[in-house]
């Protein structure tokens, strides 16, 4: 069935399935329903076909306490209702056991989007009204007698009044807001045109005049609402998809009270001095100091450092770092609102404030267009009145000018193209947050990359995997299976790719954070870890620096040494070449140590790079680029890149990025490959070209029609034809965005599937 549809693999995010939400998290994310029920929406990326819906729903129906479960294929989520009790039923475990590991969405949206439904309702009312009025108008145009014509006009007025009042609210509101601030936008001429046309037509209907513009007024709103709804729908979908990604920072945390009992509190309720227990595999919720426990922290998302840092009692730790090997008791030093994470958010807000507001193409067009339209209409009014002295005729002509030049095609020109471009990128796993991002991306001239997690995958890989001694690798992988250390995972992955059988004789595996793993194999002591520790047989100071190499030793004798390198993200090399081909400068800003960055920059042939950058440093660099007149695209994944996102002209993040980063970035790509960057750039540039064409067509069309309107030749029939004609041309031109690639599509789809399959195998 649709299991093989392209896009099925789009949400297969390996990070998302790593840790399951705890029952306490589920309760925190749920909301109370009627009759003492609770309801939660869980994101389930693995849902991809009709059979999945049934599997998920029947699995949940079998759980005791679950009252209702409804899976959603479009949104890849499931809504569950259960009886409120002390603990929720085993929803998460059941889903995971059925092969559909769920995660809590970044922010659980409650119900449908209100703006979206308002727009769709307004659109449907406008559609209904314009259809009925058009039927009556066609009868009038085909020649009815005067009495019947007046009846039809009156009926049209009756239908048009509620429709204009209801559907037009979107435009009146925005026009009023613009006028109140002393500005003008596209909605001002629309509102004035619609209101004048309606008032004049009502007057004519009462007087028994031959022409009424009810159809034109309602149709204008209909076309504009189509554009508005498209624009909103594409933004809403991208936001929903990004929010559906796994939340990386915890919602709640286990707190140890003074009497020794523990409680699960929301992160926001942590105050300085509280003792927090962080299990292995959890991220730290707040900044603090380690009270007890020895473990290693993965700081790659926070600072960009690639290797874990060993910590023990007394160490100062930052929010957002991942606890790898053993539980830690941490004393919170600040409240969650003051932690490192919050500091980053503050830096971002400051950078946002400094960035000059980008004005969208449509707004810039409107700023030129609206005064011109108004001036022409007033001029026509004054000229006709002074020549003929007939105020009614003069107003009719001024209204005809307003209607014929009303930016109906302009209103469709931009959102249509951007909607199609967004759809194309969505199909290829790139989320576009809003149309303005596409416009900004088209203009960039510098690309700034983060290193860890962006150019690289942030996970080490065993070098010479295919030449490693099979027996030694099997033994090392057996020990490694007990650890979350990135090197251990790399060993386990390398072994799993060959035969995957573990050594059954290994027992008593223990982890010494900062040193390595120790186990017994029959009478032997096996160690996997730092050379100095594994070979000397004496545990050494655990706070020593981590090394790039790892050895396997039996009773202190060297058996094998493993060397790791950083796995480049797929497509990194091609993406850099493609950006260069487009004439962009490429730069790397990393928080990692100088040698690591220099090595990678050398491999990729990038000359301009900076290492050991703090978040403030990255922000400053982006600001100085902007000051020099460059427009930078920032691609990064870490917390440390997030302030730079706000300062960059446009930003992009992989789906594995931290929550704050994902929410701040203009683009989020869900697939592993960095191809997304050049793809988005090419699409944005093509879309920009089509938008300019569309605007030119609309202006040209109006330019041709304008003299006829001023000459008083535009009857309601001509106005209706002109309006639909220009809109059709603009729509047809926008669809050209999809033309070229369609022929290649089957091939591309196959390539993605191969790529996704490879990703799973790894």
């Amino acid at each position, binding site marked *: *069935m*649709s299991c093989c549809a392209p896009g099925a693999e789009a949400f297969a995010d390996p990070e998302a399935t790593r840790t399951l939400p705890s029952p306490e998290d589920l309760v925190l994310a749920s909301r109370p329903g009627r009759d003492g029920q609770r309801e939660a929406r869980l994101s389930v990326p693995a849902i991809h*076909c*009709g059979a999945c*819906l*049934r599997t998920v*729903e*029947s699995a*949940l*129906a079998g759980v005791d306490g*679950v*009252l*209702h*479960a*409804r*899976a*959603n*294929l*479009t*949104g890849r989520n499931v809504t569950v209702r259960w009886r409120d009790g002390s603990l929720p039923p085993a929803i998460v475990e059941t889903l995971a056991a059925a092969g559909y590991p769920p995660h809590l969405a970044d922010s659980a949206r409650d119900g*449908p989007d209100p703006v979206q*439904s308002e727009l*769709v*309702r307004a659109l*449907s*009312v406008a559609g*209904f009204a314009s*259809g*009925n009025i058009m*039927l009556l108008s066609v009868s009038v145009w085909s020649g009815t007698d005067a009495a*019947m014509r007046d009846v039809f006009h009156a*009926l049209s007025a009756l*239908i048009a009044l509620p429709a204009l009042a209801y559907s037009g609210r979107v435009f009146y509101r925005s026009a009023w807001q613009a006028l109140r601030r002393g500005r003008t936008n596209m909605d001002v001429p629309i509102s004035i045109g619609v209101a004048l046309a309606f008032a004049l037509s009502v007057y004519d209907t009462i007087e028994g005049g031959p022409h009424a513009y009810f159809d034109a007024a309602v149709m204008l709103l209909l076309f504009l609402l189509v554009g508005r709804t498209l624009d909103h729908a594409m933004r809403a979908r991208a936001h929903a998809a990004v929010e559906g990604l796994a939340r990386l920072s915890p919602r709640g945390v286990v707190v140890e009270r003074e009497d020794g009992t523990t409680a699960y509190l929301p992160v926001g309720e942590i105050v300085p001095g509280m003792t927090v227990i962080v299990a292995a595999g959890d991220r730290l919720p707040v900044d603090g100091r380690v009270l007890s426990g020895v473990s290693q922290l993965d700081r790659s998302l926070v600072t960009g450092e690639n290797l874990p840092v060993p910590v023990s009692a007394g160490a100062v730790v930052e929010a957002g770092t991942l606890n790898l090997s053993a539980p830690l008791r941490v004393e919170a030093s600040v409240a969650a609102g003051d932690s490192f994470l919050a500091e980053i958010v503050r830096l971002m807000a400051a950078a946002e404030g400094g960035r000059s507001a980008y004005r969208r193409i449509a707004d810039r067009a409107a700023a030129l267009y609206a005064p011109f339209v108004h001036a022409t209409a007033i001029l026509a009014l004054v000229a006709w009145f002074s020549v003929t002295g007939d105020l009614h005729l003069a107003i009719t002509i001024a209204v005809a000018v307003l209607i014929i030049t009303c930016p109906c095609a302009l209103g469709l020109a931009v959102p249509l193209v951007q909607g199609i471009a967004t759809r194309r990128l969505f199909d290829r796993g790139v989320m576009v947050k809003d149309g303005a991002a596409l416009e900004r991306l088209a203009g960039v001239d510098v690309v700034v990359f983060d290193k860890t997690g962006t150019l690289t995958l942030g996970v080490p890989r065993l070098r010479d995997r295919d030449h490693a001694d099979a027996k030694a690798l099997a033994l090392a992988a057996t020990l490694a299976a007990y650890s979350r250390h990135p090197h251990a995972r790399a060993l386990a992955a390398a072994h799993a790719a060959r035969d995957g059988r573990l050594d059954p004789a290994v027992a008593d595996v223990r982890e010494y954070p900062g040193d390595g793993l120790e186990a017994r194999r029959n009478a032997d002591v096996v160690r996997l870890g730092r050379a100095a520790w594994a070979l000397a047989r004496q545990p050494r100071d655990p706070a020593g620096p981590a090394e790039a190499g790892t050895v396997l030793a039996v009773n202190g004798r060297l058996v094998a040494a493993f060397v790791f390198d950083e796995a480049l993200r797929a497509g990194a090399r091609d993406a850099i070449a493609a950006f260069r081909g487009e004439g962009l400068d490429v730069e790397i800003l990393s928080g990692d140590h100088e040698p690591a960055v220099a090595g990678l920059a050398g491999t990729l042939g990038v000359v301009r790079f900076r290492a050991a950058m703090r978040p403030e440093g990255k922000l400053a660099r982006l600001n100085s680029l902007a000051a020099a007149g460059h427009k930078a695209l920032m691609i990064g994944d870490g917390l440390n890149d997030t302030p730079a996102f706000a300062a960059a002209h446009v930003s992009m993040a992989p789906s594995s990025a931290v929550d704050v980063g994902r929410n701040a970035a203009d683009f989020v790509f869900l697939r592993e490959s960095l191809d997304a960057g050049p793809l988005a750039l090419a699409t944005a540039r093509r879309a920009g070209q089509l938008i300019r064409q569309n605007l030119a067509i609309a202006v040209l069309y109006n330019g041709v029609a304008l003299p006829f309107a001023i000459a008083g030749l535009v009857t309601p029939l001509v106005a209706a034809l002109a309006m639909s004609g220009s809109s059709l041309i603009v729509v047809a031109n926008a669809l050209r965005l999809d033309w070229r690639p369609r022929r290649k599509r089957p091939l591309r789809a196959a390539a993605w599937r191969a790529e996704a399959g490879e990703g799973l195998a790894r």
Partner: protein
Amino acid sequence: MSVLAYLIPLSIVLGIVGLAAFLWCLKNGQYEDLDGAAERVLFDEDGPAGP
């Protein structure tokens, strides 16, 4: 022509019924999961869990 006296109101009422039906569907969440609805029609029996 007197036939128009009730045909035109009738056509408008029918249009309003259609519009009301659409708005009701929208409010009732019928457009929440378009892909899922296409698959659910193929299920043999009713869904396992409640309404």
